[in-house]
């Protein structure tokens, strides 16, 4: 036979093998495709997000430096630009604009739905060549009209244009929805995570913003875009000197582009989320390739007898290895080829998820060939390796041993001896499943590990969701302890206790009871470590609500500071240690400056949110903030609800925000929703993989045990009874795989929560939790699916040709 003819024969033979086992080949290929395709797609997300973010920030010409006056301070329009013009840094500046950015309350209620949230008006001069907005729906804001931030509008499915009511009862029309680089991820003040559902940004021409804020001719921010290659630190130093000279009584802060919450979070999230997605991508790829390895290995093992015949006929081992390798190569190629459409579909889905949660002006979600090749290499290598093992096992024995499959089957009982003394009730048939599991420990282990990997994915992924839920529930409970209807009313600026505005809020018709406090954005500093917090000073009189203490307390007589456990861990402080609090103090009616005050940590509160901190009245005095109020906790009066309170208080000009006391938690909750879809679909894919693994394992089992089954049928054992045995065997392997998967899943979950999340979500002290439903899901994926898979062989078993199966001539 010529070389070419011989090659054609081997290929034809391998193709026939594939056709004969087409369902197995297809399902193993599908497993590989799911693993490789999902791996490539899930691993691509950070690349897409970074590419898209880079392009989007560039497209909207985001500022490199932002100068903000201390909260509540404003200066006359032109003062900041003058300071810049007078500094030596002016030559490094490509564009600059003065803005007025003020807090507000936004009522975007539609018919039948009340939407009242805190927000911000951003007033920018027309034609500014820095911080452009992209209109996603409707038209740009001109004249007295404004534009509504797109993430918020989309969250509530608001129309492209409509009416808004802002703090002070100002009614304005918004003509469109806009995306701005500072709000690619919307964050509420003091919170370091997305809050598009709880925070509305209104973009307005500068004049309109000044009118709405009752600050005519005033500004409080300067945004600057630098020439390429300029050192922002040097510009900041020059500008600091110039501003201190021009505005000696006004405190100001610099925020670099990298420190802007949206900019920082978008890259940090991309990196952090990717770490988590990578784990799941690896788990999916691992489970898929592992299962493929196992299944191909067993499929090739079934050719052992024919390999033996070949050996007996004097065929060279190298030639004998061709057929199994060609079969596994076909599976690998089919898997990798199918992986491309799977990957493209997953790309489209994940790009959709990305666009839903992080809409950007420019989206770049291209197929990442290099990542696909990474997965594909594993997807091709493992099937070939899977073929190598049984081929090697067949070639190392004598031809006659390889041929005598029946004798080989009875050559070893594996680990069945372990169960020799174990007698399960129900006779020898009832004992068979456990024995079969032990008889072939290698196969059992491989199937078990494949199932275990799937269960690991389910536990880890669903566990992440459960942990979020538990953490947020703990936070919600802490915020609402003793007053489930509690709401917080934030004032435009701090006021003296007992002021008319405060009296108006406390005495409002819809308000039942009130409790006052001051909340200021501060930074806790311990050596080189810093944590940004919203520090709330509360008095001894706390009729509505007070924090729960996990440790220590808030003393009545001396200064005390209560921080979150996560903050204490991050700052490396314990009860009794002193912290430096960097906080604003008023220097005039509209001006503040930042000061450093040392306070002792006297308590740890129960909220998992790191950015929440409390100080008592003596501490407030030490902070020079005694007697100042900017937050009022209220509960609705009998017969009124939260919407009534919002509607009434919104009309008060001094009120900036009215929201449920757990609004921050709800905002975090919204942020977490992005993962839910990814996690749920990944869990669904894991379930599909479990089914494919189980089906294949069962189909191969049915082939391998054909004679045993025929023997049983010859003794009058019914098909149903044989299936029951296979189900029992599947349940044992499934239960063991589930147990292993649950243990591994907890390990992965623990790593994610304890190692990964502190990096990616530093503001949340996530609690590890796995809900009963998750265990049920894992049991369903790992045990029930595997246990039920033998039912798929019912038809095949019913059609067993008993005499032909029993009379295998060897």
């Amino acid at each position, binding site marked *: 036979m010529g070389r070419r003819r011989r090659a054609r024969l081997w290929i034809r033979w391998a193709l026939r093998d594939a056709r004969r086992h087409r369902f197995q080949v297809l399902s193993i290929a599908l497993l590989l495709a799911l693993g490789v395709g999902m791996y490539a797609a899930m691993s691509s997300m950070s690349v897409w997000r970074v590419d898209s973010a880079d392009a989007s920030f560039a497209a909207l010409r985001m500022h490199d430096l932002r100068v903000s006056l201390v909260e509540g301070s404003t200066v006359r329009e032109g003062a900041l630009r003058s300071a810049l013009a007078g500094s030596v840094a002016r030559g490094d500046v490509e564009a600059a604009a003065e803005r007025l950015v003020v807090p507000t309350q936004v009522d975007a209620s539609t018919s039948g739905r009340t939407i009242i949230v805190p927000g911000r008006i951003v007033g920018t001069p027309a034609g500014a060549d820095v911080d452009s907005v992209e209109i996603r729906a409707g038209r740009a804001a001109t004249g007295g009209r404004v534009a509504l931030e797109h993430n918020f509008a989309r969250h509530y499915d608001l129309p492209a244009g409509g009416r808004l009511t802002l703090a002070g009862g100002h009614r304005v029309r918004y003509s469109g929805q806009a995306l701005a680089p500072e709000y690619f991820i919307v964050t509420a003040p003091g919170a370091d995570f997305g809050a598009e559902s709880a925070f509305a940004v209104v973009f307005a021409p500068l004049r309109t913003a000044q009118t709405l804020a009752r600050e005519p001719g005033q500004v409080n921010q300067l945004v600057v875009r630098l020439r390429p290659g300029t050192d922002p630190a040097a510009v900041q130093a020059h500008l600091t000197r110039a501003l201190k000279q021009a505005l000696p009584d006004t405190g100001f802060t610099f925020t670099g582009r990298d420190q802007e919450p949206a900019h920082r979070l978008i890259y940090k999230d991309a990196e952090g989320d990717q770490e988590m997605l990578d784990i799941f991508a690896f788990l999916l790829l691992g489970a898929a390739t592992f299962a493929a390895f196992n299944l191909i290995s067993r499929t090739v093992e079934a050719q052992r007898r024919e390999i033996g015949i070949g050996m007996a006929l004097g065929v060279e081992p190298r030639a004998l290895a061709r057929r199994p390798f060609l079969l596994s190569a076909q599976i690998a190629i089919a898997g990798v080829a199918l992986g491309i459409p799977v990957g493209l579909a997953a790309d489209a889905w994940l790009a959709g998820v990305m666009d839903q949660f992080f809409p950007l002006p420019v989206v770049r979600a291209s197929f990442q060939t290099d990542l696909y090749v990474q997965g594909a290499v594993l997807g091709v290598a493992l099937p070939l390796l899977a073929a190598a093992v049984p081929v090697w096992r067949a070639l190392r024995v004598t031809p006659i041993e390889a041929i005598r499959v*029946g004798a080989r*089957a*009875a*050559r*070893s*009982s*594996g680990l*069945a*001896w372990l169960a*020799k003394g174990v007698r399960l009730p129900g*006779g*020898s*048939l009832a*004992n*068979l499943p456990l*024995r*079969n599991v*032990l*008889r072939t420990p290698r196969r059992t282990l491989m199937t078990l590990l494949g199932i275990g990997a799937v269960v690991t994915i389910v536990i880890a992924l669903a566990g992440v969701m459960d942990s979020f839920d538990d953490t947020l529930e703990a936070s919600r409970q802490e915020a609402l302890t003793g007053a489930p209807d509690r709401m917080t009313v934030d004032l435009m600026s701090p006021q003296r206790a007992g002021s008319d505005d405060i009296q108006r809020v406390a005495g409002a018709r819809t308000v039942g009871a009130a409790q006052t406090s001051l909340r200021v954005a501060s930074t806790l500093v311990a050596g080189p470590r810093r944590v940004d917090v919203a520090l709330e000073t509360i008095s001894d009189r706390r009729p509505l609500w007070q924090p729960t203490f996990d440790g220590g307390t808030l003393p009545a007589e001396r200064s005390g500071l209560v921080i979150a456990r996560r903050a204490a861990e991050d700052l490396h402080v314990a009860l009794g240690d002193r912290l430096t609090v960097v906080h604003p103090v008023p220097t005039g009616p509209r001006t503040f400056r930042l000061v450093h005050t040392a306070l002792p940590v006297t308590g740890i509160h129960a909220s998992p949110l790191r950015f929440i901190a409390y100080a008592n009245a003596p501490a407030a005095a030490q902070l020079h903030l005694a007697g100042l109020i900017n937050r009022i906790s209220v509960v609705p009066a009998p017969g009124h609800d939260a919407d009534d309170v919002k509607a009434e208080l919104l009309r008060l000009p001094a009120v900036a925000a009215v929201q449920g006391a757990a609004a921050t938690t709800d905002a975090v909750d919204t942020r977490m929703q992005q993962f839910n879809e990814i996690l749920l679909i990944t869990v669904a894919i894991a379930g599909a993989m479990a089914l494919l693994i189980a089906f294949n394992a069962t189909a191969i089992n049915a082939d391998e045990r054909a*004679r*045993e089954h*025929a*023997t*049983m*049928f*010859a*003794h*009058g*054992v*019914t098909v149903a009874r044989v299936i029951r045995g296979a189900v029992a065997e599947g349940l044992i392997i499934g239960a063991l795989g589930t147990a292993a998967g649950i243990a591994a899943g907890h390990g992965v979950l623990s790593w994610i929560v304890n190692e990964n999340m502190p990096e990616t979500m530093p503001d949340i002290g996530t609690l590890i939790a796995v809900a009963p439903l998750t265990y049920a899901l894992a049991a369903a994926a790992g045990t029930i699916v595997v246990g039920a898979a033998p039912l798929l062989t019912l038809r095949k078993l019913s059609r067993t040709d*008993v*005499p032909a199966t*029993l*009379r*295998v001539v*060897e």
Partner: protein
Amino acid sequence: MSTAQPHAAVSRPAASQVEPLIRVDGVGRRYRVGDNVVVALAGVSMEVRAEEFVVVLGPSGCGKTTLLNMIGALDSPSEGRVVVAGRDITRASRKELFEFRRHGVSFVFQTFNLFPALTALENAEFGADVAGRPDPGGVATEMLERVGLGDRLRHFPHELSGGEQQRVAIARALASGNPTLLADEPTGELDFRTGIQILELLHAQAHTGRAVVVVTHNREIARVADRVIELSSGRVVREGPPEGGQVEIAGLRW
């Protein structure tokens, strides 16, 4: 090897006084292979009574295993009737056929077909279990002792020789307590010495009231039969006592 003892579950009326335990009446079996029809059996009739040791003899492909499969309800004839213990199994439902296999016949296969994960005792117990006999463990132990494997109860099949494995298979068949024992080339996988031992065991079963049908191509084995039914090309070509008269097992040579 211990001598076979009468089995409590098997009645022992004199052979001449009873109806045939197995009656095969004009049985034919055709298979379609592609466009061709292969006739495996054609108009085969035979009877086997309790306590008879009958050998079905014939070359490879003559239809002897097909005939055994008909009697054991593993296959159904294209024509004719098979009546075992008064039950027409050719008219039985699928459920009845399963029940018949549990309580009517026991098989011994050429390649043993033991369950590798079960010990010798558990394999034998399987037969008793399936047949629904009380105290299957006790029955299995007794049967293994009878076939001389009382000291190998807890051994797995791979720890036993070929002859021992076949003895376990016989013990499994006996443990069912069924009145008909069907053996398909039971010595085919064994050396002469072991084959003789197996033959002695099977032969002894006919004296416990069972009907024993052994299928073989080995003419030497046929010499110990009470009756020989010789098949060729799917037809009975001779039926009667062994040619040259029945001999003792000890006198066999192959």
